[in-house]
């Protein structure tokens, strides 16, 4: 139920609003995906795609925040064990 992969929205075909078919690139692999349940998604956004349908727009700020939290944790950890 859970294999969802982030891809970059290249183009969106708005001619059929029910499907909102888009071409999405996954590391250079392009596949037709429906953005029917992501009305706010635009070309250039990264979307999470599962079974051919977009289920969320990736939140770039939160994505970066997680990496920063880890940096701080790494510094904390290295202090705790004497900077080994």
């Amino acid at each position: 139920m859970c294999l969802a992969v982030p891809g970059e929205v290249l183009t969106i075909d708005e001619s059929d609003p029910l499907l909102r078919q888009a071409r999405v690139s996954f590391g250079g692999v392009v596949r037709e995906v429906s953005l029917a349940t992501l009305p706010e998604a635009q070309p250039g956004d990264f979307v999470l795609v599962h079974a051919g349908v977009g289920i969320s727009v990736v939140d770039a700020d939160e994505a970066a925040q997680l990496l920063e939290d880890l940096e701080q944790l790494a510094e904390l950890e290295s202090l705790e064990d004497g900077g080994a």
Partner: protein
Amino acid sequence: HRDVITMAHGGGGSLMHRLIEQVFMAGFSNPALEERHDAARLQVGSGAVAFTTDSYVIQPLIFPGGDIGSLAVHGTVNDLAMAGARPLYLSAGFILEEGLPVELLTQIVRSMRAAADAAGVQLVTGDTKVINRRGNHGVASGGDGMFINTAGIGLIEHNLTIGPRQVHPRDCIVVNGDLGRHGIAVMAVREGIEFETAILSDSAPVAAAVLDLIAAGVAVHCLRDLTRGGLVSAANEIAECSGFSARLDEAAIPVREDVRGACELLGFDPLYVANEGRFIAYVPPEHVEKALDVLRAHARDTRPAMIGTVTDEKPVRVTLDSRIGAPRILDRLSGEQLPRIC
């Protein structure tokens, strides 16, 4: 339920392995076969000869980067190369299905001829049979199918013994390029995935590279091409036959970014995906640099790499140090990888 052959038996995994061992090896067992190598090594008069056979049943018949014809030539030549032989002659048995357009057959034969010329081999004998049209259950083409069985003969001009039993615990494992292109190129046609930069099958002859390795004095202990079941099946076969474990490093294994993208999308692991122009060589550590130099000279748009080492860890198995540095066992799948959602 009674055991029937299923697609899973064709996937290069443990079901195929068990079928080979329990049905074919049991049925035909003899010393040359027991080597379980890509090509049998035979003494014919005073000369040593390599002899191999293979069948090609690929769907679709034409795929990005090749077709069933060029694939048949490359696959047979590569099996001979795995014995360090110079490929010389091929045979081809065609099984044609009612309804196959002659024009398509002509195109495939033309492509076979071009591949044979490029690999420096001649197709010297052939046969043709026709079968009636099968239903098209699940088979995209349905009705215009064809199958090719080949055999190949090559001359062994070196005096190395190349095979799993020559593998040493300190050996390094070298691969001649990035993995997964063939399996993904074919699957993409079936799954309707296109690529910004086309992923072409890596189908290509590797005999020249192998012969250069030997000519450069690299002590090649074992060779194995990475076809059905990918790197994991080949590494497991060699580990089993040699009696030594192998430890691979995921970060060192080259996989193209778009091949990885397709694998993430379909839920595949690239280490299990089929290749048609890739092989692994087991060489002593002191010969790794020389081996990589030789392979780089033959690598057009890819880069060879050292991807692991042989160890004497027991029980015998293949393990992988994952990208995050934690170990896991690389077991054979029972059948073929299937696109998955979970």
